[in-house]
């Protein structure tokens, strides 16, 4: 089973939850930028959370389905259509053999996720299928998709096969030639992070925070920062009030991670994203709470964001609540899918 790439889009890469265990060799974890959307997309097609999805940035690709597949689209709204029919987001969707999935303008957000029942079956490199554009590892030959690529798809889970079977039955019974079929329910906005509001990013103090001047810290929390166009999967550069240290500091490099907010000598903060370097030498003003990383991942260059300080305990609590929420959503999806045929 495979999917043919007719047009690749601006930057479409195969990603999963990333590589772990190699940071000490300088290899960053990488993986999907919006962990919420990607995980939800996998749940909606009965995949494990580790399955590889397609991450599509701003302009989506054009894909031909050789066989019927159960897919889902989550995250940014890249106005997907199959034979001019809009494909709904945040739902399982049965796309029938021969269909072409096209994407148009990006209406909301920045990164769309396409999950396919069975997952994208590129070979694993160091325990992950994530594309690392910098070293050329993982994904499809370590690069973004190109015209003519064939993406092979793994074996759908037993559950997904059951769902697909029932959906196919429905299509037959309706005696119409549906190109796509989706249930009426979806993951409601209540169940997802708020992608569309003015992003207020919650951060906690780092061990370097106290090295910054009181005035700088005040500004950092009071003012808005614009996400610069020089932002990518490695880091978001911000433009706004200059942040300064109390005294110049020759800091020794140390481990950094996803969400670490560094301040280089020009005083403009940088938030490290999925493809961050493993070690950093710049002072760290704050650390973004995990729960708000999906919101950042969907914020386009030019977006104005502000920071709100929370404690490390609060961040931990929110992260736990999000995890519990995800597990509830997973149960809900299964219940909804199981009830689908009988409705």
């Amino acid at each position: 089973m495979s999917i043919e790439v007719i047009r690749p889009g601006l930057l479409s890469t195969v990603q999963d939850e990333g590589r772990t265990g190699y940071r000490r060799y300088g290899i960053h974890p990488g993986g999907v930028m919006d962990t919420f959307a990607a995980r939800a997309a996998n749940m909606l097609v009965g995949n494990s959370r580790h399955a590889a999805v397609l991450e599509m940035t701003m302009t989506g690709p054009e894909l031909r389905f050789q066989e019927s597949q159960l897919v889902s689209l989550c995250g940014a709204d890249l106005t997907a259509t199959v034979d001019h029919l809009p494909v709904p987001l945040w739902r399982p969707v049965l796309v029938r053999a021969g269909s072409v999935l096209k994407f148009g303008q990006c209406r909301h957000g920045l990164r769309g996720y396409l999950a396919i029942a069975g997952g994208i079956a590129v070979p694993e490199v160091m325990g992950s299928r994530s594309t690392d554009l910098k070293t050329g590892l993982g994904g499809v030959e370590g690069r973004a998709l190109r015209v003519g690529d064939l993406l092979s798809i793994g074996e759908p889970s037993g559950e997904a096969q059951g769902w697909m079977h029932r959906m196919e039955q429905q299509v037959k019974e309706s005696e119409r030639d549906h190109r796509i079929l989706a249930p009426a329910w979806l993951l409601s906005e209540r169940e997802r992070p708020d992608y569309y509001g003015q992003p207020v990013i919650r951060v906690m103090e780092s061990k370097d925070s106290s090295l910054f001047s009181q005035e700088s810290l005040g500004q950092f929390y009071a003012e808005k920062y614009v996400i610069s166009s020089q932002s990518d999967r490695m880091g978001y550069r911000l433009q706004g009030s200059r942040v300064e240290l109390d005294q110049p500091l020759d800091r020794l490099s140390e481990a950094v991670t996803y969400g670490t907010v560094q301040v280089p000598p020009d005083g403009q903060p940088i938030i490290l994203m999925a493809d961050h370097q493993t070690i950093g030498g710049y002072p760290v003003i704050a650390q973004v709470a995990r729960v708000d990383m999906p919101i950042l991942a969907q914020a386009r260059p030019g977006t104005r964001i502000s920071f709100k300080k929370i404690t490390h305990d609060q961040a931990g609590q929110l992260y736990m609540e999000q995890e519990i929420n995800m597990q509830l959503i997973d149960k809900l999806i299964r219940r909804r899918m199981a009830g689908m045929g009988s409705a």
Partner: protein
Amino acid sequence: MTKQTYAWTEEILSPLGETAVIIDCGDHLSEAVQRRVMSVCAFLEKSSLPAMIEWVPSYTSVTVFYDPFISPYPELCRILLQQLNQMKESVQDKPRTVTIPVCYGGEWGPDLNYVASEHGLTPEDVIAIHTSGDYLVHMIGFAPGFPYLGGLSELIATPRRATPRLRVEAGTVGIGGKQTGIYPVDTPGGWQCIGQTPLRLFRPEENVPSLLVAGDRVRFKQITMQDYLALKRKEGER
């Protein structure tokens, strides 16, 4: 036997977000602190912290990445401190010494002459000083397989270039201030490029994907252009 002289108290732990904790092993760079960092790593390698996913050494600290849904931060810290206090700071097994063959100068090291003239030396002096050093791999990071090497002679310490090169070729040996290192992959870079090694530092096909690991000792050896080309061919065939 080294006696334990360092206090593993709560103050040495600080969170790096919700999924990592930094263990401070000292506040300045020294052989003693480096030994402590390596002891902690060796200890973590053998210990069984169920929540631990991986750890990363640096000059003066070790950062442990963990799953907060297995052990939340306070619990993780408690277990870590308990274990660290039982740890015996071990004298390292004899560290491995890796010899890195380098073709200095010319198109392989376009900044060699600059480094020499900055210090009133000849290029040969710079090579002699660089190859006589005994370097310690403090950590691997920044890029896959990139070693942060300590032990560069002050005689050839040179500030970074004012404008970084857009592309430094993989294998390039550079000097950045008091550090020396080797670029493992093609990348933009601001260090003074003095030579190139034919060895591949990043080895994604291998179990340990980095030629060098923290704690290794490194020596540089000058080779000729012919040796360079021959070795490079051999590395390419691996």
